[in-house]
């Protein structure tokens, strides 16, 4: 069979859907209310900077994943240790995405279902798709991106009648510290999570082509994210920081001639599709990382046991939505900054130094 080829559209959609994954529902910088867009823009600026570094790193050794690069940079033992740290991060990220899923479902849709049941179902679906490989996932993500765009735009159009521009006043924020603080959070979640893609970059194609599409995809995600944030602010105003799922609450207010009401279920559907793609991509990267680090022949037999661990951990680590959000907003960023920024920079510098000295 011919080797899988990823088209530009597929890479763009994977990146965009990945970034939008949970943000469709949980607005980044939500506790800032109307100023959330500022921290999103700042975080995106930082992210573009990091993307540049990722590009430089990937260009040093095209076709190699972050795991292989770590080993090249730090030698076998230290490299493996760093890889294990990355794997733990990937694992936690997968757990976090699944937990977001499960907490959302258990607070809004299936209230009386135990969370282990929901997470098992979702992880089973994710495991099935990861076993099928990255290609079907990429093809599906194109459809999901279209679905997301249609949902975001149509929900926005349907709710325009209760927009209130005054919700943006005052335009200039007084507390810049909070905004900078949140920029850090927003950078770590969702933008910095794109580090996941470094786990299987070689599969997608040449770095030049991939990064062109990755940046296109992230711009697309940024635009949609801003649209969602603006819409929620225009509708909810000062209530926004108080809600758990602002988009959900916004869609709840839709009422067109008593016929189209309670459209929040479409937001929920959309979120499940997006979250599914995101969880599958992180899970895929995790499995590939395990395969590379421990030099296995195939990752397919790992999918089910690791999946069971993910489902169990989602239940044990985040039994309630409160704990999930608390971790997300307060602690996740300190932990995530290490693999997302520090280790990547370190790897890059060491590799660069090694190359330079080898050239001499």
């Amino acid at each position, binding site marked *: 069979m011919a080797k899988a080829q990823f088209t530009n559209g597929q890479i763009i959609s994977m990146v965009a859907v990945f970034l939008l994954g949970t943000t469709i529902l949980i607005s980044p910088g939500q506790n800032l209310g109307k100023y959330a867009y500022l921290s999103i823009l700042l975080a995106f600026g930082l992210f573009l900077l990091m993307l540049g570094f990722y590009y430089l790193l990937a260009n040093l050794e095209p076709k190699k994943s972050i795991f292989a690069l770590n080993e090249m940079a730090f030698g076998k033992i230290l490299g493996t240790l760093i890889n294990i740290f990355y794997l733990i991060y990937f694992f936690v990220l997968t757990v976090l995405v699944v937990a977001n899923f499960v907490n959302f479902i258990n607070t809004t849709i299936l209230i009386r279902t135990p969370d282990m049941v929901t997470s098992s179902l979702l992880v089973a679906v994710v495991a*099935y798709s990861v076993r099928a490989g990255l290609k079907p996932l990429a093809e599906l993500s194109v459809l999901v991106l279209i679905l997301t765009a249609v949902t975001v735009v149509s929900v926005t159009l349907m709710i325009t009648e209760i927009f209130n521009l005054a919700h943006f006043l005052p335009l200039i924020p007084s507390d810049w510290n909070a905004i900078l603080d949140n920029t850090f959070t927003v950078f770590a979640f969702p933008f910095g999570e794109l580090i996941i893609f470094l786990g299987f970059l070689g599969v997608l194609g040449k770095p030049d082509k991939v990064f062109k599409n990755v940046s296109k995809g992230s711009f697309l995600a940024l635009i949609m994210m801003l649209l969602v944030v603006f819409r929620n602010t225009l509708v909810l105003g000062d209530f926004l920081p108080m809600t758990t799922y602002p988009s959900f609450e916004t869609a709840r207010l839709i009422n067109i001639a008593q016929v189209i009401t309670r459209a929040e279920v479409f937001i929920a559907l959309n979120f499940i599709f997006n979250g599914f793609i995101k969880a599958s991509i992180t899970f895929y990267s995790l499995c590939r990382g395990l395969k590379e680090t421990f030099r296995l022949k195939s990752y397919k037999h790992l999918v089910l046991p690791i999946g069971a661990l993910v489902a169990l951990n989602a239940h044990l680590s985040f039994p309630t939505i409160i704990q999930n959000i608390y971790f997300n907003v307060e602690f996740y960023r300190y932990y995530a900054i290490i693999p997302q920024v520090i280790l990547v920079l370190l790897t890059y510098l060491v590799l660069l130094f090694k190359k330079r000295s080898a050239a001499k």
Partner: protein
Amino acid sequence: MRPRTKGVSINQRHLTSDLKSNLEIIKTILNESGDIIIREFLIANQTKAAILCVDGLVNKEVVQYSVLTPLLVYSNDGYWVPRYRIKEYLEKNLLTAEDIKENRVISSIIDKVLAGDTALLIDKEDTALIISSRGFSTRAISEPSSEAVVRGPRESFTEALRINTSLIRRKIINPNLVFESVTLGKVTKTAVNIVYIKGLAKENLVQEVRRRIKEIDVDGIFDTGYIEQLIEEHPYSPFATTGYTEKPDVLAAKILEGRVGVLVDGSPNALSIPLLFVEKFQTSEDYYSRPLFSSFIRIIRFISFLISIASPAIYVILVSFQSELLPTQLLVTFANAVEGTPFPAVVEVSIMMLFIEILREAGVRMPRPIGPAVGIVGSLVMGESAVSSGLIGQPLVIVIALTAITSYIIPTLYDESALLRMLLFLFSAFFGIIGLVSSTILVLIHLATLQPFGIPFMSPIMPLEGEDLKDTFVRAPLWFQKRRPKALGGSVRMGDKPSPPEESEEI
């Protein structure tokens, strides 16, 4: 019974130059079967000869007037022919049959005779003449029974391979149209033809089909269905990845798009390889009628498909999980109708879904006069009385009826949609809307992994091909479809003309 091995060893032999022993060997191999005709006679009163044919498979007029009459009557008034030239004389001057070939291998001669040809064996010659005389009775070309059309050709394939190939050949008059003959079935020796247009079908597709068909090693092939199951690469998928049709124009159109067809002697259905998902929604009439209405019908078909697979699932979700999705008025009506029914929605729907499948199976296999009666008993009596006795709610009857009707809209998707309906329903019954979405994702991922013969099954939806969407959810005017489907090569189908009519000047 003679030992089998003996027959096989005789099979490999060539003819000898002794007529008597040749006939003995042939009789032994054919087990002196009752339908074999062996007629011995003298050519020009001097040379012993015999013809060998199978009663019922040969055209008796050909044997009578093109073989026996010249040999028995006209050979007598010919000039004297030397012994060693008699075969050549017969072939060149005497026999009036249209196609004569020489053959020496006994097994090959017998295969030809069993297929309907006549063999002429001559004494002192170690070569037989095979005279083409096939003429067995077949069903006449009739109207298609399962693919009825309002517009377009009305002929359908029959059971005879040569008639079927001629139907295709008449539609595509092109030297590049190739019928590759393969004989399949160790016992039945069925003739199978692989049909494609050289240079138009992707070379690796043709090779792959050829390879898989040649690798088939079974005792018998009676229908294209055997071949379909033996060459498909996703046997456990609910989705069929090879298509079948009984209309020559449909097969011709598919071949013209770059597909490969397979015809089997004895089967009125032709296979087309590969089958893409969207093809199941296309009918030949879409292309014969005007585009606007065809597109409308296409959309109706897609909607029907969604309704037929998802409506029981959505019903269960609405009744048991997300009742708040219904507008208030509808909810009240609903609650009134469902109130007092003894079973939970899940049980009700399962019973009714099972019931409708049973009803269909009963209706299909019944002789024609009884069929409608089954329908009436099933739908009217049982459906009506189930509601009036308060066993199930009225809305459910509507939902089930809708499911049944929509599932008949696309007959080619019936098998798939029945299974998908069960899957979606089970997931939704346990997990509500989350189950519906999860099962949808499962199905979509499964569909994306299907690659029959290396061609993505879901093309042009997954992977998305903007160009090919012109013939997917809508059927764009013919002049838009300048290229063949990308998955099948995407070569140019038509030039710049015909083009859309020029708009008249604005006044």
